[in-house]
């Protein structure tokens, strides 16, 4: 029963979306239906997180096929945390959208597309299979392409093109990487790859696969040389969707990085970990420099996503259990803070009629609550204690210093510099839109519904504050999630059974893999003849 509930976060949004495609006319009852469905997904995810925290990884084998043959869904604590976050953000984005638009203005396709997006993301978070991950990415990406161009006007629609193009290219690389993995290891199951990849640590072929995956996930998460699509495409989205995209979509890439390096590939690929950490440096710096050069709230926030992703990749690339926990904590903090900042930007746009900073002003006078909310989240993003961003940054810096390595010191210096510059650009928004009262800018309240929108954001800020003030509890959860994600032995045991885990634990005698069970043996023979594995002693 509990194991079967693993599929609910994927199947509920999917069914709801299909129902909504038939139920075309926007109405209050349709909104209620969607709201309840997304809330239900959120609660199921929280329940799964509770279950995995206490009882370990849940594995759902479709059709009762024994892995590595069938398709599996594996939910560990990290997956469950990500599922909960995606449920929460989608729910907030729905509420905000409902508050912003009356039913007559609503585009009938927006809600089903967001639900398809949610289904794709949740599938990416809970799958235990590389090819399934590819399919999940495609579901997610197609929904996101369509959402991006759905409500864009004629002037903006072209900015979606770079996003689409680079992601299509990324998908092709992903497909090829999956093919290479299959040809090298004869399997696509995460646990089985973890089991079989161990002897290939020094093999350049495994390196190539790792780099190809890193490229794909780097495109998705906006890593340094691959980020140029992000700040162009996100600002064309309407505010609730920008919050969702800015919060969740790049973090799918970060999640995949953690999963790939911690759970799937052997932990000895030190050079790639360092490569990731070193790329994180320019990602942080260039992201924040881009942010300082921009003149509208959504562009600034889009660039900040890049610099924040740099922090996460740095924590992931340093590759210590504590660093991994820092990465997970940072993801949790960042998703909520970033989404709520985009939503605050949306409120400012409704009040001032624009989110170009030189056309804004008076916000503090008109809406002090929005100002307070913005300030809390902006300072949290910059990393001031006792807000949630501080703890995330603190953990990353501690991890970096503990490495006692000159490169790590430089990277830590980069991160502190990026933190200060984040503060500068956040203050730029603050002064331009909240503090100054220029005479040539009038307050044209476009939409009297902004107060309800504020209520949604206040709710998110409350959650964010509890992360900052109750950091101890969240830290514990993040540490447990990191430890679970990095414990390949237990992962293999849960997915493939005790025998396989035994084999993993004495991983040096590879040829025993062939005899791990009678079922697997036959296929292994076939594989053995096919790709003549090198004997390792």
């Amino acid at each position, binding site marked *: 029963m509990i194991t079967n509930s693993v599929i609910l976060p994927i199947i509920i949004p999917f069914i709801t979306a299909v129902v909504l495609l038939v139920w075309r006319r926007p109405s209050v009852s349709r909104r209620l239906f969607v709201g309840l469905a997304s809330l239900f997904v959120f609660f199921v995810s929280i329940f799964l997180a509770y279950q995995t925290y206490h009882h370990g990884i849940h594995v759902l084998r479709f059709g009762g096929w024994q892995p590595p043959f069938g398709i599996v869904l594996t939910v560990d604590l990290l997956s469950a945390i990500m599922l909960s976050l995606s449920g929460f953000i989608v729910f907030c984005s729905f509420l905000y959208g409902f508050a912003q638009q009356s039913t007559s203005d609503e585009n009938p396709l927006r809600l089903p597309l967001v639900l398809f997006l949610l289904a794709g993301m949740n599938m990416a978070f809970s799958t235990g299979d590389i090819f399934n991950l590819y399919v999940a990415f495609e579901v997610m990406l197609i929904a996101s392409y369509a959402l991006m161009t759905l409500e864009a006007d004629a002037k903006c629609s072209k900015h979606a093109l770079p996003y689409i193009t680079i992601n299509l290219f990324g998908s092709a690389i992903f497909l090829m990487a*999956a093919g290479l993995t299959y040809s090298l290891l004869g399997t696509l199951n995460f646990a089985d790859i973890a089991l079989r990849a161990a002897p290939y640590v020094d093999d350049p072929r495994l390196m190539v696969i790792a780099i190809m995956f890193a490229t794909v996930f780097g495109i998705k998460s906006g890593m340094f040389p691959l980020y140029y699509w992000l700040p162009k495409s996100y600002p064309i989205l309407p505010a609730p969707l920008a919050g969702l995209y800015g919060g969740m979509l790049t973090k799918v890439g970060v999640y995949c990085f953690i999963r790939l390096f911690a759970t799937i590939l052997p932990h000895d690929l030190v050079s790639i970990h360092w490569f990731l950490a070193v790329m994180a440096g320019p990602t942080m710096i260039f992201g924040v420099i881009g942010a300082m050069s921009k003149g509208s709230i959504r562009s600034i926030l889009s660039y900040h996503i890049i610099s924040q992703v740099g922090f996460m990749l740095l924590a992931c690339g340093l590759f210590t259990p504590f660093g991994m926990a820092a990465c997970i904590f940072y993801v949790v903090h960042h998703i909520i803070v970033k989404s709520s900042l985009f939503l605050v930007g949306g409120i400012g746009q409704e009040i001032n009629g624009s989110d170009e900073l030189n056309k804004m002003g008076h916000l503090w006078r008109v809406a002090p609550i929005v100002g307070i909310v913005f300030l809390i989240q902006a300072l949290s993003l910059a990393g001031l204690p006792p807000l949630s961003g501080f703890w995330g940054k603190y953990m990353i810096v501690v991890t970096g210093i503990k490495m006692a390595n000159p490169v790590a010191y430089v990277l830590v210096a980069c991160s502190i510099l990026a933190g200060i510059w984040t503060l500068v650009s956040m203050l730029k928004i603050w002064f331009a839109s909240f503090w100054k009262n220029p005479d040539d800018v009038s307050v044209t309240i476009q939409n009297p519904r902004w107060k309800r929108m504020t209520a949604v954001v206040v709710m998110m800020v409350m959650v964010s504050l509890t992360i900052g003030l109750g950091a101890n509890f969240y830290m514990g959860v993040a540490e447990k999630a990191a430890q679970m994600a990095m414990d390949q032995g237990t992962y293999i045991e849960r997915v493939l059974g005790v025998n396989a885990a035994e084999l993993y634990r004495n991983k040096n005698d590879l040829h025993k893999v062939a005899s791990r069970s009678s079922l697997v043996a036959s296929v292994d023979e076939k594989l053995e003849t096919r790709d003549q594995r090198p004997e390792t002693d």
Partner: protein
Amino acid sequence: MRLLFGFSLITHAANLFILAMSGEPGTKASPIITEGVTQYVDPLPQALILTAIVIGFGVTAYLVVMLYRLFRDNDTTDVLEMFEDDGSMDRGVAGSKEQRETN
């Protein structure tokens, strides 16, 4: 337009690549169980390709509609021309990079 054809090419290339990963077919039989045959072609890459083709089809359909819309919005299918008169939001690194790529 060239984007569309490029995309079709690269997806087909990726599909063929996976097919190549299933190894030399040689004298192996197709993966349907028949008596007296012990050597089968690995069926999994074929299943993967089938999925990938379906996905590729969906994405291509979307891309065609998207390009048509871009054509209607901008009166051109030339990416370079499309991003030429761009005052609003992509001054700086992102804009110039995009233009360099299309060159």
